[in-house]
C-alpha cells in the first residue's frame, strides 16, 4: 500500500539531472513530425516569392492533376475563417485584416497563398511547385526608417504613412531634467531583426472526427490553451470541441508564443477533407513566415550631471513591425519602454514609439522580447556617458544604482521593482574577472598597440509575466495536484515547457512540500483535454507563476491531508511533515499513502470534507519579478582581420532562489549564446525589394560550438517577495545581459581609435572597415 519512497534531505537546491531526459536521449520522445495517423495526408503551402505583389490569378489545375493530390485550397476558400489574432490593444492601433491565406495581394516573402494536400509529402511538394500563381510585383519597403519617409511604398494601401501606431510614455519632468543637465549625450542604437530559429520548426497535425464534432490539433506551441481559444474562434468551432495537444516541443524562444495562420488552416483542411493532415514547416518557411524578433531603431538622449548622476532619458523608438500584427507584435516595444531606466534611479523619462509596417514577416516576442532592446540601450548609453565624462564604466553605474534600502522601488515607467542588491553581482563579477589587474593589462596592451577591451553590463529584467492587467490574455497560471490512491503525486500544470526542465523542478518542489521522492511525482502538461486552462511558458514565468500555483494547490491539499490524518489517528492535534501525519500528543503517525488510500476509500469522512485528494489553484501574481545581474566580457580585436576574440566571459546572475543549479546554469549558457549570436553574427536582412536574403541556415549565422567562449557563471541570491518560492525567473537573463556587455567590450577595445558606438552584429567586416577608417563609422 505505502508505495511512496522514503526521502532524505531536500530536493530544492540540488543539482538533480532531469526527469524528462530519458525519452529525449533515447530518441523516443514524440515531436509533431513523429505523429503518424491512418490515412494521414501531407500539406505543402505555396508562399509568395515577392515582398509585395498583386495576385492576378491562381491556377490550381496543374496541382490537382498530380496523382495523390487530395485537395487544393486558396484564399477564396478560406475567406470565412477568422483573421489571425492580434492580442494587444494600443490606443489607435491600426490592425490589418490578417487572412490565413492571402486574398488579392501579398505583403511579404513567405505570405501563404495556397495549400496543397496530398497522400505523401513528396507529392505535396511536387504539386505545390506545379501550382501557378500570376503575380504583379509591386514596390516594397523593408527598412522601417525608409518606410516612414514621404513617398515610400505603402505596405497597406489604406495607410500610406505605414504607421500602425504612435505611443508615448512620460515619467517625472523630462524638460526640467534636460534643462538642469551639465551634459547631454545622444546615440542612435539599433537592435537588428533576428530569426529565433528553434531547432524544431513549427508543425501541425490536425484530425477531425465529424461524428463527434471534435477537432484535435497537435501543434508545436508554447501556449496550447490560447491556441485552443483563438483557433476555435477563427474556425467558428465551439471551444470545447477543439483539443490542442502540445507534444514534445523542440524549442520556442518566443517564436511559438503565438497563434499562426497554419494552425487554423490545418484545422480547416482536416474538417474539409475528413482525414488527418500534417504540415511540417521547412527551415526556409521557418525563416520567412515564423515571427522574427527585435527590429528596433532607437534614438537615445541622456541628460546627466558632471559627476555622472543620471537626470533624464529620452527615447525615440522606431519598431519594425512587419506586414501584420501577430499575437503580441505591437506590445513588444512597450516592454522596452518599461525597462528603459534599467537598474538606475533616474526618475525622468520620455519615450515615443512609432510602430511601422514593412514588407516583412511580423516581429514579435523573441527571447527577452523588448527587454534586451531596453537593456542594450541603457547599458550602451551608460558607457557613452562614461566616455563623455571620462569616468570608469563601473563607477558611473555604482553612482546611479537604486539603493538596497529603496525597495520596493517605484520607477519612472510605473513599475515596482520587487527586490534588489545591484552592487552584489557586480562586485562578484569584478572580483571573478580581476578587474583592476585587467585594466592594468589593458594599459600595457594599448602601449603595444593591441586592441583589448573590457566591457560590462549591469542588467535588470522584468520577468514572471505577469499580473493579468499587464497582459492581453491573463497573466496568472494554474495547477492541479492529485495525490492518487497509492500516494503517488500527479501535477498538471498550465505551463507548457519545451526544454526548461519544469518536469524536474516542479517535482522537486512538490517532493519537498509533500515529503515524497522525486520519482513519486509526475508532471503533466500540454494537453487541453487533460490539463485545466493555463497560460503557457514564456517571459521567464514558468516556475515563478506556474510553480507558485502548484505550491498553493499543495498547501490546500495539506490541510485536507491533516484532516484525514487526524481522523485516522483519532486525534485533533496533528502536523503533516516529511510525508507523514503525526499526532502531536502521542507521537503516533500515519504515512501519506495510507491517508490517500483512506481519502478515496471514504469509509469515514472527516467533518465537512469531501473524498479524494485533488486541488486546483489559479494563482494571480501581485507583481512581476525583477531579476538582475552583471556580465563582464574581455575581448581582443585583431587589427588585420577585424576578428573579435572573447578572452573571458563572466556572468553573475541574481534570479532569486535557485531550485536546480544545473538547470539554471543551462538557461544562462543558452541565453548568453543567443545574446552573442545577436551581438556578433545574426541578422535577418531584407533587400529593397523585400526579399529575405538570409533565408536559410547557410546565410544566417547561428552560433556554433567552436565559435563561442567558455562562460564562467556565478550567482548572488536576492529572493523575490512576490511569490512564496522566492524565485524570479532565469530563462531570458543571459540574452538580456549579454549583448551590451560584449558591444561595450569591443567599443572599449576600439576606443583608442575614437570609436564610441558599434551597431550589431559586429561582424569582422564591419570591425575591419571601422579600423581602416580610423574609427570613423
Amino acid at each position, binding site marked *: 500500500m505505502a508505495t511512496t519512497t522514503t526521502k532524505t534531505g531536500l530536493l530544492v537546491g540540488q543539482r538533480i539531472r*532531469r526527469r524528462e531526459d530519458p525519452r529525449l536521449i533515447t530518441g523516443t520522445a514524440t515531436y509533431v513530425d513523429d505523429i503518424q495517423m491512418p490515412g494521414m495526408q501531407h500539406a505543402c503551402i505555396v508562399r509568395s516569392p515577392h515582398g509585395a505583389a498583386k495576385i492576378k490569378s491562381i491556377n490550381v489545375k496543374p496541382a490537382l492533376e498530380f496523382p495523390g493530390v487530395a485537395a487544393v485550397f486558396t484564399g477564396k476558400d478560406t475567406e470565412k475563417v477568422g483573421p489571425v489574432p492580434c492580442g494587444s490593444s494600443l490606443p489607435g492601433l491600426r490592425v490589418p485584416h490578417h487572412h490565413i491565406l492571402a486574398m488579392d495581394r501579398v505583403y511579404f516573402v513567405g505570405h501563404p497563398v495556397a495549400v496543397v494536400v496530398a497522400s505523401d509529402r513528396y507529392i505535396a511538394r511536387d504539386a505545390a511547385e506545379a501550382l501557378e500563381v500570376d503575380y504583379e510585383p509591386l514596390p516594397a519597403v523593408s527598412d522601417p526608417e525608409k518606410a516612414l519617409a514621404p513617398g515610400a511604398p505603402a505596405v497597406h494601401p489604406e495607410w500610406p504613412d505605414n504607421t500602425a501606431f504612435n505611443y508615448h510614455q512620460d515619467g517625472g519632468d523630462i524638460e526640467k531634467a534636460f534643462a538642469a543637465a551639465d551634459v547631454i549625450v545622444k546615440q542612435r542604437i539599433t537592435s537588428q531583426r533576428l530569426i529565433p530559429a528553434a531547432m*524544431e520548426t513549427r508543425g501541425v497535425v490536425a484530425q477531425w472526427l465529424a461524428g463527434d464534432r471534435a477537432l484535435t490539433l497537435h501543434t508545436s506551441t508554447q501556449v496550447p490553451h490560447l491556441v485552443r481559444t483563438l483557433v476555435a474562434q477563427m474556425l467558428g468551432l465551439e471551444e470545447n470541441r477543439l483539443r490542442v495537444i502540445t507534444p514534445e516541443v523542440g524549442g520556442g524562444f518566443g517564436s511559438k508564443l503565438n497563434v499562426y495562420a497554419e494552425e487554423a488552416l490545418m484545422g480547416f483542411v482536416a474538417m474539409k477533407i475528413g482525414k488527418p493532415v500534417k504540415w511540417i514547416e521547412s527551415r526556409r518557411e521557418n525563416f520567412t513566415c515564423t515571427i522574427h524578433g527585435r527590429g528596433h531603431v532607437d534614438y537615445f538622449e541622456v541628460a546627466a550631471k558632471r559627476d555622472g548622476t543620471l537626470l533624464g532619458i529620452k527615447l525615440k523608438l522606431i519598431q519594425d513591425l512587419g506586414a501584420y500584427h501577430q499575437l503580441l507584435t505591437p506590445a513588444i516595444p512597450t516592454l522596452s519602454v518599461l525597462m528603459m531606466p534599467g537598474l538606475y534611479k533616474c526618475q525622468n523619462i520620455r519615450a515615443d514609439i512609432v510602430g511601422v509596417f514593412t514588407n516583412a514577416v511580423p516581429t514579435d516576442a523573441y527571447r527577452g522580447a523588448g527587454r534586451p532592446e531596453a537593456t542594450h540601450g541603457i547599458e550602451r548609453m551608460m558607457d557613452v556617458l562614461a566616455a563623455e565624462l571620462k569616468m570608469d564604466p563601473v563607477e558611473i553605474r555604482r553612482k546611479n544604482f537604486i539603493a538596497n534600502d529603496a525597495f520596493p522601488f517605484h520607477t519612472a515607467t510605473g513599475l515596482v521593482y520587487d527586490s534588489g542588491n545591484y552592487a552584489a553581482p557586480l562586485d562578484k563579477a569584478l572580483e571573478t574577472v580581476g578587474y583592476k589587474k585587467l585594466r592594468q593589462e589593458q594599459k600595457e596592451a594599448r602601449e603595444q598597440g593591441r586592441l583589448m577591451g573590457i566591457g560590462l553590463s549591469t542588467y535588470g529584467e522584468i520577468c514572471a509575466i505577469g499580473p493579468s492587467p499587464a497582459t492581453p490574455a491573463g497573466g496568472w497560471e494554474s495547477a492541479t495536484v492529485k495525490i492518487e490512491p497509492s500516494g503517488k503525486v500527479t501535477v498538471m500544470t498550465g505551463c507548457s515547457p519545451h526544454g526548461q526542465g519544469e518536469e524536474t523542478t516542479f517535482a522537486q518542489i512538490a517532493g519537498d512540500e509533500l515529503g515524497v521522492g522525486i520519482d513519486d511525482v509526475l508532471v503533466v502538461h500540454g494537453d487541453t483535454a487533460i490539463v485545466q486552462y493555463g497560460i503557457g511558458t514564456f517571459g521567464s514565468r514558468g516556475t515563478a507563476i506556474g510553480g507558485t500555483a502548484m505550491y498553493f494547490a499543495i498547501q490546500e491539499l495539506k490541510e485536507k491531508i491533516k484532516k484525514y490524518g487526524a481522523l485516522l489517528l483519532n486525534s485533533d492535534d496533528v502536523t503533516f511533515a516529511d510525508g507523514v501525519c503525526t499526532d502531536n500528543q502521542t507521537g503516533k503517525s500515519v504515512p501519506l499513502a495510507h491517508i490517500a488510500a483512506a481519502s478515496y476509500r471514504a469509509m469515514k469522512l472527516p467533518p465537512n470534507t469531501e473524498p479524494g485528494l485533488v486541488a486546483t489553484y489559479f494563482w494571480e501574481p501581485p507583481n512581476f519579478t525583477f531579476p538582475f545581474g552583471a556580465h563582464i566580457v574581455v575581448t581582443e580585436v585583431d587589427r588585420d582581420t577585424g576578428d573579435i576574440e572573447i578572452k573571458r566571459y563572466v556572468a553573475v546572475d541574481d534570479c532569486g532562489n535557485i531550485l536546480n543549479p544545473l538547470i539554471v546554469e543551462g538557461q544562462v549558457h543558452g541565453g548568453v549564446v543567443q545574446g552573442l549570436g545577436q551581438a556578433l553574427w545574426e541578422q535577418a536582412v531584407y533587400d529593397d525589394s523585400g526579399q529575405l536574403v538570409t533565408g536559410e541556415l547557410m546565410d544566417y549565422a547561428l552560433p556554433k560550438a567552436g565559435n563561442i567562449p567558455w*562562460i564562467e557563471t556565478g550567482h548572488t541570491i536576492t529572493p523575490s517577495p512576490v511569490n512564496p518560492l522566492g524565485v524570479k525567473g532565469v530563462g531570458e537573463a543571459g540574452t538580456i545581459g549579454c549583448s551590451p556587455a560584449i558591444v561595450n567590450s569591443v567599443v572599449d577595445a576600439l576606443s583608442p581609435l575614437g570609436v564610441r558606438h558599434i551597431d550589431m552584429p559586429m561582424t569582422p567586416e564591419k570591425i575591419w572597415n571601422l579600423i581602416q577608417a580610423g574609427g570613423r563609422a
Partner: protein
Amino acid sequence: MTRSITLTLNGTKRTDTVEPRLLLIHYLREVAGLTGPHIGCETSLCGACTVHVDGQAVKSCTMFAVQADGSHVLTIEGLDAAGQLDPMQEAFWNEHGLQCGFCTPGMIMTAKQIVERNPSPSDEEIREGLQGNLCRCTGYQHIVNAVRSLSAKA
C-alpha cells in the same frame, strides 16, 4: 520507379522498396519508423538527422536511402538496444547536455564519433567536432562537458 534496398539497421537486416529520390532520413523516419533522428533543415546544416553509416557519422538528409543499400546504419535507437544506456547518452543526461532535446539524437551520434576518433579530445577538439551540429538551447557548454566526461583523460 522504385528500387529494392537491403541494409542492416541497428543490427537487424531489412529490405524495403523505395523511390530513388527518398532521402535516408525520410526512409528512417517514415519507412522504418525510427523517429529518433530529426529533421531540422533538410539542407545538411543543422545535424539533427545525424546517424552512423558504416561507422561514419553522416547527416542522413544528405543521402538517398538507395545510397545506404548494403550498409550498416546505426541510429540513436540502436544505442541502448541492450537495455542499457550508451555511456554517451548517460553523459548527456548527467551533464544536462540537452534542453528541448530536438538536436540531441544527432548531437549524441556526432559526440560518439568524436571520442571514437580521438579518445582524449581537448575542449577545442570537442568544439571543432561539434561544428556541424547546431543547438539553440544549451549554448553548447554542457554538451562539451558531457563529451569531456567520457574522454580517457577525464
